[in-house]
């Protein structure tokens, strides 16, 4: 009987948000004690699907069966009670509370009307030990690293004695070692009989852990495959819907003179003694693990944060950058990593977003906003990057991730004094089609002779697009590889060189 084989089964789930169909008739089957990967591009509906399972969202259509019985969750509480726990992509911790409080939030141990703190602390310690965590139950969550917060979330899921645990991109912000630790934990859980749904963008995760994989695309169910029977190419095709041929249109550009240089820049606690340079027409990659200090270096260059020491040169001239405006005046443009919180004002129209950095330049007499000029200009640049929008007055929040990123690019292009472009994870959360377009724009910019720095964690785009790659590890530049020298192995090697040593030190 199929009912007994599947611990969780969902049929024909449809979820509608204002204006969009987030899920359209999707299916899903989870076997008892299996690790099931759920894959798909950003915006494919994975996260929404998870929230339907955990009762956060109520589906408009469809049925859900838990151990063969149909269930209707009215809220997250019901799902928790039914033994389904989730660890979300962005840790949903309570930053002001302790680890114990976080773990037991919502299912405190209560005896005689009193919360049993001692028992809970002991239990929390037990859970943390089980996960080999290096922090204490009494620590405040806000002070912990993202990885540690993630671990707390897993401990929380464990503490509910859940039968089904959902992990939504748990490795996204973990280092290789931490990921390894997580794999171990997942294996352990599976052996204990817990069924696990695992969402990840990393193929590595899937191969390492899952036995079956379900793919979603454009809010629809595409198929479920056995991991050992499907090829990588087929899986990619299932995810993006077509074969990607020329993903990385790296143009042949003659590299010019050095235009940008950082010398010995340090910022306590973030990076130390960083030096690098960029030539005209060159695309320079910066990679390394999340938290290696790549973004922080570039933020210091752009005046977002203040470095403790170091010099920055642009076109041979030493710069004094105190605030972002200074960097912009010099022609250093940053496309920040996080579109919704750093790159765009989501409630504003596209046009206003594009012209915000240059409003002073456009303004009549430097004071009065020139709406006409602004509209024309933003129209021009938004069209140039081929944004899918009806008018320039559409709020940025109404666009998809890829199109939002294009608006950020248009915003950068609009700055006519541009000399150096720093792109921080420009393709993060962008669908494949838009990705290719962004790479193309990057190529065009290089052709025009601008210097480009691309911060990225995605190996293929680093290898595909960059002339040179700087690798950072734990706040230091550990190496610089030419296009010819660069390979996945060498980059990984450089990005982890110190990690293992440091790990040992910490353990002592």
């Amino acid at each position, binding site marked *: 009987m199929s009912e007994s084989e599947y611990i969780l089964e969902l049929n024909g789930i449809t979820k509608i948000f204002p204006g969009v169909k987030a899920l359209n008739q999707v299916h899903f089957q989870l076997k008892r004690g299996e690790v099931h990967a759920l894959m798909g591009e950003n915006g494919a509906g994975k996260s929404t699907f998870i*929230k339907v399972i*955990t*009762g*956060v969202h109520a589906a408009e259509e469809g049925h859900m069966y838990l151990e063969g019985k149909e269930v209707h969750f009215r*809220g*997250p*509480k*019901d*799902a*928790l009670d039914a033994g389904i726990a*989730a660890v*979300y992509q962005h840790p*949903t*911790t*309570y*930053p*002001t*509370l302790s680890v114990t*409080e976080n773990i*037991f*939030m*919502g299912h*405190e141990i*209560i005896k005689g*009307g*009193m*919360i049993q*703190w001692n028992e809970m602390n002991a239990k929390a310690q037990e859970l943390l030990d089980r996960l080999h965590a290096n922090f204490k139950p009494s620590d405040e969550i806000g*002070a912990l690293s993202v990885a540690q917060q993630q671990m707390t979330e897993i401990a929380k899921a464990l503490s509910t004695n859940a039968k089904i645990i959902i992990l939504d991109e748990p490795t996204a912000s973990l280092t290789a070692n931490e990921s390894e630790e997580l794999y171990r934990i997942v294996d352990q859980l599976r052996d204990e009989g817990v069924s696990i749904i695992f969402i990840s963008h990393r193929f590595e995760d899937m191969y390492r852990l899952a036995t079956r994989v379900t793919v979603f695309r454009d809010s629809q169910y595409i198929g479920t495959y056995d991991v050992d029977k499907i090829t990588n190419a087929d899986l990619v095709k299932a995810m993006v819907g077509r074969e990607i041929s020329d993903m990385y249109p790296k143009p042949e550009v003659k590299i010019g003179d050095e235009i940008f240089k950082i010398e010995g820049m340090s910022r*306590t*606690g*973030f*990076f*130390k003694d960083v030096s690098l340079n960029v030539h005209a027409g060159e695309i320079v990659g910066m990679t390394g693990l999340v938290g290696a200090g790549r973004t922080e270096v570039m933020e210091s260059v752009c005046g977002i944060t203040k470095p403790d020491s170091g010099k920055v040169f642009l076109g041979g001239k030493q710069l004094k950058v105190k605030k972002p405006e200074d960097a912009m005046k010099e022609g250093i443009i940053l496309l920040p990593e996080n579109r919704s919180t750093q790159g765009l004002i989501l409630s504003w129209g596209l046009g206003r977003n594009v012209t915000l950095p240059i409003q002073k330049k456009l303004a009549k007499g430097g004071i009065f906003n020139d709406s006409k000029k602004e509209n024309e200009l933003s129209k021009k640049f938004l069209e140039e990057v081929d944004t899918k929008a009806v008018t320039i007055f559409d709020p940025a929040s109404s666009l998809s991730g890829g199109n939002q990123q294009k608006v950020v690019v248009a915003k950068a292009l609009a700055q006519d004094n541009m000399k150096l472009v720093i792109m921080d994870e420009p393709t993060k959360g962008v669908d494949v089609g838009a990705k290719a377009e962004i790479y193309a724009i990057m190529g065009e910019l290089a052709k025009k002779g601008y210097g480009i720095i691309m911060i990225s964690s995605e190996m293929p785009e680093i290898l595909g697009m960059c002339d040179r790659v700087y690798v950072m590890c*734990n*706040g*230091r530049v550990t190496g610089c590889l030419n296009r010819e020298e660069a390979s996945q192995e060498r980059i990984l090697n450089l990005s982890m060189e110190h990690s293992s040593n*440091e790990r040992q*030190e910490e353990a002592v």
Partner: protein
Amino acid sequence: MENKSLWKKITGSREALLLAILVVMGIFITILNPTFFSPVNIGQIFRNNALTMIMALGMLCVMLTAGIDISITSTLAFAGMTIGMLTKYNIVNSTLALFLIAMVMGCFCGAMNGLIIAKGKVAPIICTMGFMYIWRGMAYVVGNSQFASGEDVREFAEFGKDGTIGPYIILIVCYALFFWMLKWTKFGRKIYAVGSNAEAARISGINVDNTLISVYTIMGTLAGLAGALSVSIYASAQPNMQYGREMDVIAACVIGGVSMSGGRGSVAGTFLGALIISIIAKALPLVNVPSIAQNTVKGVIILVVVIFNVITQRMVDRQNLERREM
């Protein structure tokens, strides 16, 4: 590692710091005026500030959810004025009944705040500002230009008379109850959760709206209780009673380490914060600081305490960064 935890304990424990400030203040005042540290005086500090102290508990809950309530003294006046009139005209004379009526009224006022803030998604300060005007106006309407005082409330005032233990018992019960509620019950956890990360709370199955409504209802109920207590202690009900004192209550919480952005704060801290505010009010006349300087001293203390807190937090962050190896 050991060093760090010790340092962290000292700077991290807001309560210890406040206690130290209190002790220093106490010693200082006692040197200037030895009568300060007498049982009578200490008793009076608690009695005269019972209202602030009780309402600070409710404000603690409200601020834990990242909200604020500036309508409390209006609620207090509305409830206080109503029972004052009831007993003046001998409609209700039972002390217990009057207390209950005041609390039910406060509960209603608070629930209105909660409903509009939770369901209408209105910023707490704006919503409670509206009700600040409304309930205060209602207090005048109820009073119809009458006070209830002295003889009118004689029987009721017996409860809060100097020398009786009624107000102290209410104070102790409230603090014990809230200490228990916030630390030892599920509901208390929910309040912290909603203030610390409302989205996470929603995802983990906490009904955020209901928690908010409850919190404002609790605040209102306490304001109603404080209204009754005010009438009893001062043997007078006036429509302008405790006008402007909501800021004292907020100040007590802020000094006590309750974060305005939610999720952080404790009953012990609130108690100490309220105590500091009370002692300032009590001590200044005793040490011959003209009472007109009272406000300035209070304002300076609020700013110093919050800024000191920010600076220590920055130092701790800085130290954490420096410890990071590279």
